[in-house]
C-alpha cells in the first residue's frame, strides 16, 4: 500500500510539504516515496495528499501502477490536442 512518484515529477516540493507521513524525500532526479512510510494517507485524509496537490499529470501512481492524475485531468487540455500541438511544433 503505497503510491509511487515517477520521473514526470518536476521537483516542486508541493507533495513533501503536505504529506502527513513524511514519506517523501528528494531523490537524485525527482522526488521518491518511501513505501514503508506511505499510508496512502489513510486515517488522515480522504484523498492521498501528494496526488491532490501535484500539478503534473502522470507523476504519481497508485499502488496498482496507474496514474492518479491521468493526462488531461489537471490542465484540462485534451490529450489529442496536446499531441497535435507537439507534432506541429516539432514539424516547424
Amino acid at each position: 500500500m503505497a503510491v509511487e512518484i515517477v520521473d514526470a515529477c518536476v521537483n516542486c516540493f508541493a507533495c513533501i510539504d503536505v504529506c502527513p507521513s513524511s514519506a517523501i524525500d528528494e531523490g537524485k532526479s525527482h522526488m521518491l516515496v518511501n513505501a514503508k512510510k506511505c499510508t496512502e494517507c489513510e486515517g488522515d485524509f480522504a484523498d492521498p495528499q501528494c496526488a491532490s496537490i501535484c500539478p503534473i499529470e502522470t507523476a504519481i501512481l497508485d499502488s496498482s501502477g496507474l496514474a492518479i492524475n491521468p493526462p488531461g485531468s489537471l490542465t484540462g487540455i485534451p490529450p489529442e490536442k496536446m499531441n497535435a500541438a507537439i507534432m506541429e511544433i516539432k514539424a516547424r
Partner: protein
Amino acid sequence: MELSVIEEAAEGGCSSSGCGSTDDQMTHLPDNIREKVQNHPCYSEEAHHYFARMHVAVAPACNIQCHYCNRKYDCANESRPGVVSELLSPEQAVKKVKAVAANIPQMTVLGIAGPGDPLANPERTFDTFRMLSEQTPDIKLCVSTNGLALPDAVEELSKHNIDHVTITINTLDPEIGAKIYPWIYWNGRRIRGVKGAKILIEQQQKGLEMLTAKGILVKVNSVMIPGVNEDHLKEVSRVVKAKGAFLHNVMPLIAEAEHGTFYGVMGQRSPEDSELQALQDECSGDMNMMRHCRQCRADAVGLLGEDRGEEFTLDKIEEMEIDYEAAMEKRAVIHEGIIESLNEKHAQKAAAAETTLVTPDKTYRPVLMAVATSGGGLINQHFGHATEFLVYEASANGVRFIGHRKVDQYCIGNDTCGEKESALAGSIRSLKGCEAVLCSKIGFEPWGLLEEAGIQPNGEYAMEPIEEAVLGVYNEMIEAGLLDEKSDDSQMISA
C-alpha cells in the same frame, strides 16, 4: 503557482519623469506612499530607469493551477513569470542577494514571486525574509501571491515589515474564475471549477482587506484574457481600489502553443497592444495604473527589462567574498546620488516645461513613439541592441508613458532557439501603432524598412532625456504639417 508576476510598477506624475509629462499613476498617491515607492523600480516608472530589482526563486510549490501557466517548463530563454532555472534554498538566496546588492548597487528591491506561490511555501519564503531583514536592512522586500493562502500569512508578513504585496486578481466572478483556474488545493482536497474559483476569490478579497487594514501597500495584477475577463477588469479595478489597493497593473496574457499551457494549446489569443492600452486607459480613469511592468521571470536580476541572472549563478556567487557592511555604505552613497540628480531633473523640467512645449493653438491628434533606452531616462540605445522599446504618447497634454514592447518573442523550445533572421521583422512588428522610433543609432537596413512600415527612425536625440526628445519630435511633426488634416488613417487604437 503563483505566477510570479512579481513586481512591476507604476509611475509618477510630477514626481516621475517630470512635469512635462502627464502621468496618471503616482500623482494620485498620498505623499507617504509616494516616498515609499520613489526608488522602487516596479512601482515607479521613473525609478525603473535607475534602480534595479531582483527575485529569488525559493518558492517552488503552488496551491492552484492557472490556465496561463505550465509548471513543466524551464528554458533559460524563457522570460515568463513562473519560470526559473535554478531553485535556491533560503541560505543560498540570502547569499545571492548580498552578491547582487554589492555588485549592482542600484538594486533596491528583493521580491519573492515563485516559481510557485510564495505563500504556499511559507517556511522557505519567511526564512528568507527573516534573514534578509536582519542581514540586508537596506533592501526593500516584497512578495507576490495568488492570494489563496494570503489571509493566513498576513500576520507573519506584517512581522517582517514587508511593505509591498502583489496579489494577482483576474476576476471577482466564480463563473469567470472557473475559466481561468481549473483547480485549487484547499483543506486537503483538490477542488475544481466554480467551487474552487469561489474560494480563491474570497480568499483574495479577504487578504486584500486585511493587508490594507494593516497599512501594508497592496498592488493588484490582472492578466487580460480576451473573451474571458477583459470587460470585467474595469469592475475589478474599481473594487480593488475601493478596498485600498494603491496600484492596478493590467498585463497581457502570454499564450503560445509552445508554452504548453492550456490557453496556449487551446488557441486562446493574447490581446493586441492597442487593446491592452485601451483597457489600461479605461481603468486608469478610476485607478492608478502601471504600464511599465515587464512580467519578469521569478529569478530575474537587474533593471527592469534586463536580466543579469547569469552573472550570479550558484557556483559564481559561491566564489564571491562579500563584505556587506562596506557594500551598504557604498550603496547608500549611490542611492543618494541618484535621488539627488532626479530631484534636480524635476526642478529643471518644471522650469523648462512652459518654454519647451509649443502650445499648439489647435489640438493635434496624439502620436505614439517608441524609444530605445538602456536606462537613465535617456535615449541611449542602438536600435539593433534593443530587446524592448518603451512607448510614449505625445499630445497637447504633454508626454506620457504608455508601456513597453518586447522585441524578442519567447523562445519556443530547443528546436527553434537561435533563429535570428527574423529579428528585425519582429522589432518592426512590435512597433505597430508607433509613428516614430527614437534611438541613439540605427543601421541603414532597418532605417529603410522602418520607413517603409511608416515608422520614422530618429537618431537626432541621442543621449537626451526621453520626454524632452519625444516632445521635440512631436513639435517637429506639428511644424512639418504632418499632423494636419485628417491623417487619421494613421493607426491609433485601431488594431
